[in-house]
């Protein structure tokens, strides 16, 4: 029987698995080098500068802090991808989740862990509710979720600006920055410096690693387990892979669609929290924008698997943080966007090419088996 149909590892299978990322990496390095050459600088100098700066302890912590929200948001998107849907609305869901959790979370004081849990629930509720609009429109009115979630992003932007400026913000004399009331200490998530110090890591001027890092890791495990090892996860994937077959075998595909979008929104609600609970302790005008869009790229690059997305979130974080050093050698730090973009596009294409190649191989081998 053919090797390609068994779970056994063979050289050709390993080769196929490695081919796509390798081809994508080579292609994106070429493109990024061209971008650097366009600024009349040496690509090798640029890459070594980035590598040097990016692997310093302080930078690595920042990489993790950048990657944490990307990872959570990417999981949110992956939930819908696995169900054959696409939630582009993570940006809006996480913004509303962060805004409401800061506003409501600052209203009361609870014991430390409980308070954080309550803030999580608020964020998940509002993220989920915002996604539920798209889910309702999809299931009941047949509105394409891609379009509706994009519109909901713009709506969330306007709504959060309105709520912050007119209702939620504290009025501070002599300050232009609008922000919600500071969260009490019980709702703040401490950084991981105490643990890191025992491991021999020294304090860094930029601060430590957000405590939400653990939440992201745990969420990754839960995602992996639920999608791959539970009935719900099976039905989710089934309705994504072949909706008709799923419906025939008794999967309520409308329910799965609704659930996938709402769960995705709830997880997305959490992805705005690492910075808010770990550093700013309030929602303000400077809330980091664009997490939801970068996370789409992270999910696509990571092939919607828990491990793959962890890798791609860290890669994106690394490129973002280390590219700041490019300014020292007179290269626009925006070069990192070119790197991210070329990695994304080339990997998407490379995976598709390898998938087709594998299908051709399989059908050839099948033909051989049938003939024999």
């Amino acid at each position, binding site marked *: 029987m053919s090797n390609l149909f068994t779970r056994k590892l063979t050289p050709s299978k390993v080769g196929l698995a490695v081919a796509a990322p390798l081809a994508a990496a080579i292609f994106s390095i070429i493109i990024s080098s061209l971008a650097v050459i366009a600024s009349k600088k040496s690509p090798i100098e640029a890459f070594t500068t980035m590598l040097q700066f990016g692997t310093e302890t302080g930078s690595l912590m920042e990489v993790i802090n950048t990657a944490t929200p990307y990872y959570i948001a990417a999981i949110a998107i992956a939930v819908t991808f696995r169900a054959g849907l696409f939630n582009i609305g993570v940006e809006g869901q996480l913004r509303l989740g962060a805004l409401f959790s800061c506003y409501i979370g600052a209203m009361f004081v609870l014991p430390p862990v409980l308070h954080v849990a309550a803030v999580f629930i608020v964020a998940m509720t509002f993220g989920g509710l915002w996604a539920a609009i798209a889910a309702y429109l999809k299931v009941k009115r047949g509105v394409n979720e891609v379009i509706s979630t994009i519109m909901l992003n*713009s709506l969330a932007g306007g709504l959060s600006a309105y709520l912050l400026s007119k209702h939620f913000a504290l009025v501070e004399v002599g300050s232009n920055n609008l922000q919600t009331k500071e969260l009490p200490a019980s709702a703040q998530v401490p950084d991981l410096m105490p643990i890191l110090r025992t491991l021999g890591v020294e304090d860094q001027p930029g601060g430590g690693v957000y405590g939400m890092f653990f939440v992201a890791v745990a969420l990754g495990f839960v995602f992996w387990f639920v999608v791959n090892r539970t009935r719900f996860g099976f039905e989710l994937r089934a309705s994504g892979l072949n909706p008709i077959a799923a419906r025939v075998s008794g999967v309520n595909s409308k329910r799965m669609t609704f659930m996938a979008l709402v769960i995705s929104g709830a997880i997305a609600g959490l992805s705005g929290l690492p910075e808010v609970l770990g550093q700013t302790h309030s929602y303000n005008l400077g809330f980091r924008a664009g997490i939801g869009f970068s996370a789409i790229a992270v999910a696509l690059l990571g092939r919607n698997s828990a491990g793959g997305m962890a890798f791609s979130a860290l890669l994106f974080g690394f490129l973002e943080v280390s590219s700041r050093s490019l300014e020292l050698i007179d290269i626009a730090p925006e070069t990192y966007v070119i790197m991210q973009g070329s990695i994304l596009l080339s990997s998407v294409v490379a995976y598709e090419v390898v998938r087709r190649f594998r299908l051709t191989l399989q059908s050839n081998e099948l033909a051989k088996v049938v003939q024999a």
Partner: protein
Amino acid sequence: MKAMKMLRYATMLVFVLASIRVITGATDLTSTGTASAALLLSVPIVLAALGGLFSERAGVVNIGLEGMMIMGAWAGGYIGSQHGPWAGLFAAVIFGSIGALVHAIATVSFGVDHVVSGVAINIIAAGLVRYLSTLLYKGGSWPGPSQSPGVESISLNGLPVLSGGQYFGWKSPDVLGSIANLKWFFISDFAAILRGLTGSVSYVTVVAISFVPLAYFILWRTSFGLRLRSAGEAPYAAESLGVNVYAMKYAGVLISGGFAGLGGGFLAIVAASNYQENQVAGRGYIGLAALIFGNYRPGGLLAGAGLFGFADALQLRDSDSIHALLLFIVAILVFVAYRKFKSGKQVSALISLASAGFTLWFYFSVDELPGQLVTMTPYIATILVMALASQRLRMPAADGIPYRRGGLR
């Protein structure tokens, strides 16, 4: 016959708007300024939607319209500021097509999921132009690293006799303008709107709007159009009849990128006077929504784009009008309730009526809508329209399905 129906709808619409103007005193609802702003804001959406039309009719979903518009806006601003506005528009078309070429290679040649490729293009385009802007930024008289220098404007003109304008040194009378100034109910409203649509219009606008009937002619009255649509409806059947489906899909996507790029260039050169970052601001997506609202037809997408342009113009010009427009929503909801009741759906009729009551209450409880909420109008309009219209829509049968010659997927 169909034109008569359209005319009747337009008359009804103006009548309702004029009535609301009289009741609420929100004069901007039917003013010349609003109509001309609506036209100006509709054009990029029309162009994006036309782009979507060609691509989706050829069976390729094009979420990447947004990115192609961004590329076009960037090229329009930077090349337009150096070589004049017409060169800028040409460059916008070329840059939009470059984005489309990437989309076509990924989706048609490599069979990547269309939405995935489109989103990737949007992310890349936004990053690429940011990078290129900082690369080109020279300081000095340049406004900033995220803006292009100013572009010379393209001249405006009006329809002769009816709405003024200059023709070879002859100053045309402005008939519609003088009727609009008479302040007669309905007639003046109608004249003011017509004058807004025909007076001081950019030549680019005229060309862009004339693309709509042209697109209809190409897609439904030529053999090229038939082949292109067959690639979107039944690619394998088309292939068996000797149509080169790959070529048709490439053509559709490339034309799509050209239109989207032109829409972006229009934003930078005609609607504004230079390229600014985030200028496109989701108009590619709204164009796609207008296309879907218009049931993948040229006339329909024009109506959709006009609606979004109108909502956008009102929110830019005057928030009082948006407040007054709440009454318009009440009128629509009551009408829907009446239709539902007639067809025996009491429950939905009651829901519509209750929503109408709530909107009416909201209208009286607030004096004016806060600015941040007013900016949401076009997006709310998009969602509402999609929610009401989605079920009667029919997309091309093979839209979004990767095609492989010979049927091996």
